[in-house]
C-alpha cells in the first residue's frame, strides 16, 4: 500500500535526520522498510542503565491504520515485557483499539524508552515482576540489574 510505504519512508527519514537520544535505528534489511531494528540504551537512572536492548519494530502493511508491534529481542526483566522468546511489549498505544493513525513510530519508541525508566506495573504482562516492582522494589531493581548485566551487555 502505497500509503504505508510513503508514510513509513517518511518517518524513517525523519527519525534518521533527527535521531532519538539513546536509540539507534536501522533496517535489518534495506529491502524491507516494514521491519526496523532499534537499539535502546538502558536509560540513565534505571536498573537497565549500562545495557543495550535490541528491539524489533514491525510495521504492518496497513500502517498507519493498524498499529506496529514492538518486541524486545534482548531479554529484559520488566513488568511490561513478556518474559518469553517473543519479548512482546505491552504498550497501551499499540493496542488496536487505542491506536491512532496519527501516532508515529517516534512516539512509540519514546514511550518504550519511558517505560524502561518508569515501568507501569498496573498495565503489566508479567504479573510476578509487576508485583515485585510494587511491593519489593529493591528486589526488582536487583533482578533487573542482574538481567541487564547478563543479557544486555554492550
Amino acid at each position, binding site marked *: 500500500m502505497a500509503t504505508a510505504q510513503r508514510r513509513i519512508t517518511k518517518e524513517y527519514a525523519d527519525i534518521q535526520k533527527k535521531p532519538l537520544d539513546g536509540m539507534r535505528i536501522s533496517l535489518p534489511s*534495506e*529491502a*524491507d522498510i516494514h521491519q526496523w531494528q532499534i537499539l535502546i540504551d538502558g536509560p540513565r537512572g534505571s536498573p537497565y542503565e549500562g545495557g543495550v536492548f535490541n528491539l524489533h519494530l514491525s510495521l504492518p502493511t496497513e500502517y498507519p491504520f493498524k498499529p506496529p508491534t514492538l518486541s524486545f529481542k534482548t531479554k529484559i526483566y520488566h513488568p511490561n515485557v513478556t518474559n518469553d522468546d517473543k519479548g512482546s511489549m505491552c504498550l497501551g498505544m499499540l493496542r488496536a483499539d487505542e491506536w*491512532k*493513525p496519527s501516532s*508515529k513510530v517516534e512516539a512509540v519508541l519514546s514511550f518504550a524508552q519511558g517505560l524502561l525508566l518508569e515501568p507501569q506495573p498496573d498495565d503489566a504482562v508479567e504479573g510476578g515482576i509487576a508485583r515485585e516492582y510494587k511491593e519489593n522494589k529493591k528486589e526488582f531493581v536487583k533482578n533487573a540489574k542482574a538481567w541487564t548485566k547478563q543479557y544486555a551487555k554492550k
Partner: protein
Amino acid sequence: MASVTQVAGTHSHSTQSAIDSQPQNQVHSAFSRAGGRGGSRGLHGQEGARGGNRRGGRGNRGNRPDGAPNQRARRLSSSANPSAPPMPSPPGLGGEGSFGARLTKDAETKEGQERKEQDGTEDGVEAEVCFICASPVVHNSVAPCNHRTCHICALRLRALYKTRACAHCRTEAKFVIFTDDATKRYEDFVEADFQETDEVLGIKYEQKEIYSDTILLLRYNCPDESCDIACRGWPDLHRHVRSLHHKVLCDLCTRNKKVFTHEHELFTQQDLKKHEKFGDDHPGAVDQSGFKGHPECGFCRQRFYGDDELYTHCRDKHEKCHICDRRNPARQQQYYVDYDSLEQHFRKDHFLCADQECMDKKFVVFESEMDLKAHQLEAHPNGLTKDARRDARRVDISAFDYRTPHQDNRGGRRDREGRDGRGRGRGRDPNTEALPPSTAQPLRRDELAYQRQMAIQSVPSATARTFGGQLTSTDAYAARPTGRNQDTVTAPSNHTTTNSSFPAIDNLHLDSVTNTAADSPQFTAPVAPQEQARRLQHSSVMDRASTMLKYDQTKISDFRGSVSSYRTSTVTASQLIDSFFPLFDVPSADLGKLVKELADIYENEAKRNGLLKAWNDWRAINEDYPSLPGPSGVLPGSSAAAAGSGGHRVLKLKSSTAQSSRSAVSKQGSWGKSTAANPFPSIPTSSAKRAGAGRVGATPWVAPSSSSRPSPASPRPVSIPSPSGKPNGSAAVDAFPALPAAAKPNTMMMGLTRGTVRWDDGRGNNNLANPWGAASGGSGSTAPAAPAADVDREADMGRKKGKGNKKQTLYKFG
C-alpha cells in the same frame, strides 16, 4: 441541485457495494489530479496538525482564489476565527465549472494541468502533506475536533475501515467536512456551505468537485494503470481484468484488504499463487508491501486473508484442547480438526468422562484422575448409565484409569505406576505397556448395590473388603481380577497372595486361599479333616452362600443341591461352578472366596483340588486368560512372571467382562453349555464354540499371559473383536498367545468384559483348562486376589482397566 442529489444517491450505493451506475471513466484523472495538486500546507508534527494550525502552508488551493490572505490570518489566529471568509466560491476554476464536465477526462486533465501550474508557482514552499499518509493533500477533511487529514485518509477510515474516529484523537464524528479551505474551523461551517452531504459515510462536501473526486475513489476502478474503466461491481471487475488484461485479482484481498478498488493488485495466475503463498514482498522495491502471504488452514486447505481471519476460522471450525492450553499458555496454538479428534486426544492424554451423557455434552474431560473422580462422584453417583457402560466397551477407555490414582496410593503397585503413569491412552504403543485390560464390568444398579452389600458383609477381610466393596462393585472386582492377574504377577510380592487368585477379593483371605490355590497340595494341609471342624466350615460356607444369595431359600437349596451333587460326584467341579453362576450374582472375587471355603470343606483332596482347579480354570478363562498366569509361572508360557503384571490387568479386565457377560448374557444357559463344551485346551476351538470367543481366546492367552506383558497384548486383540460384536469373534482371534503383541488393550478389555460368552468359555476352560488349572489355579487365585488388589490396583490398572475400571470406580463411589 437535482443532479447533485442524484449523484448523492449513487454515491451512497457505491459506498456500500458497487458504484455501478456511473459510466464515467475518470477514476484516474481524479487520482492524477490528486497527485498533481501540490498541497501547500505542511503539517509538521502532531501538534501542528492538531489545532488545525498549519505551519508554512500556503493556504491557497487552486480553487480558492480569494482565500490566501484570509487563510493565513486564520491560521495564525488558530482559535476562534470569526472572520467569515467569503465562502469559497464554488469550484469554478478553470473549465471545471460544471460537475458534468469534471467527470470527463478532459476536465480532469485540465484540472490537473491547472494544478500543476499552481504547484509550480508555489514550488518553493513546502507542500502540504497529510499527516497520516504522508501524501500531498488534495482536499482537506475537517472533523469536529478540528483535526485535519487529507480527504483520502478520511474516506479510507470511513468507507473502508468503517470507523468514524478521528485519525488524530480518536474522537468519533458523525460528520466530517471535506473542504478545500485549509484553515476554516469546523464550527465555522454552516449548512449552507455544503453542496453535498453523504449521510452514509458522514461526509459533508463543501464543493461538488470534492464530492465527485470522492465518488471516483469509491468506484470499481480497474487497477490497471492504463485502464480507466470503472466496473459495476466485483464480478464485473473480475471479468474485466480477466478478459481485457488477462490478469486476476486476489479474491482474499478484494474481500478483506482495506484499500480502494484501484489500489488492488493485478496478478497473473502464477503470481497469484505466489502472492497467496509467500506474499508479494518485493525486497528493495519501491512498492514493497510487507505482505507475507495469506495463511492457510492446514485442515481445510483454505487460505485466509490474515492471521486474524485464520484464527477466527480455527476458533469457529476447529477445536482446541483447553487443558493443554492451560498447562502451557505460551505454546503455539494447536488445533484439532474436529471434536472427534479432540476427543481422541482427550482419551489419550487426559481423563475423559466416559458417561454417555458427558460424551454427548462434550468437553467433559479432566486434567487429572482425581478431578475425573470428583466429577463422577458428583455427576454420576449411581455409576455410568447403561449406555455408557455399553459404550465403554467400544471406546477405549482402557486408557483411562479412574481409579488408578487412588489405588496407587494404596497398594504396592509401583510397577504399574511406572507404567501407567500418565499416558494411558489409546494411542499408546501397545507393546510399550501391558495393556491394562479394562476391567469394567458394568453392573446394574441393583447388582452393584448388592455386591456392595456383600462386600461389606463379607466377614473376614472386613477391612480390606469394605473398602474394596465400597469402591467397586463386585463386578468391578471381578473385572479387576484380570488386572490383578497381572498385578499378581508383577507385584506378587506385594500381596501375600500373589499366587492365590481367588482370595483376592478379601485381600487378607485371599492370601491364604490364594496360596492354596496356587499350591494345591498345601491346601490339603489346611483342611481340617475332623468332622467338627468340617461342620464349622460348612456353616461358615453356608452363611456366606446365604448372604450372597440374599437369603433366597430357593437358591440356597439349589446351592446345597449342587454342592452335594459334586460331593457325590454327580457333577464335575466345573459343572458345579457353572451352576453357581446363575445363583450368585456377585463378583467373581466373592464367588471365589466362597468356592475356596467350599473346597476346604471337602475332605476328599481330589474333590477339593478339583473344585479349586475348576474355579481357577474358570477364572483364568473368564478373567483374562493367560495373563492371569499371574499365578506366576503357573501357566505354561508364563515363565515371565514379572511380565505378569500386565497379565493381571488383562485378567481383571476379562473377568470383569466375563461377569458382565454373565449378567448380561444368559448367565445360566450359557454356562451350562459352555462348561460342557469348552475344551479349553484347544482354545481356538472353544472360542469358536463359545459365544464368548473372547474368553476362549483368553484361554490360550493364559499361557502367554503368564508372561505378563505379552498377555496383555493378547488380550487386546481379543477385546478388539469383542467391542464390535461381542466376544465371539474375538475368541477365535484369541487363539492366542500370539496376541500378546497386539495391543490395544483397552478395546479388548471392553469387549471381553461384556462378552457373556467368556464366562462360558471360562467354564469350558476350567474343564479343559487344566493346563491352566495349575496355572490357572495360580491365575485364578490371582484373579481373586485381584479383587482386593483391584481396588488398590485399580489405579494401576489405569489404562487397561480403562472403561471397566472407570465404571467400576463409579459404582464404587456411588
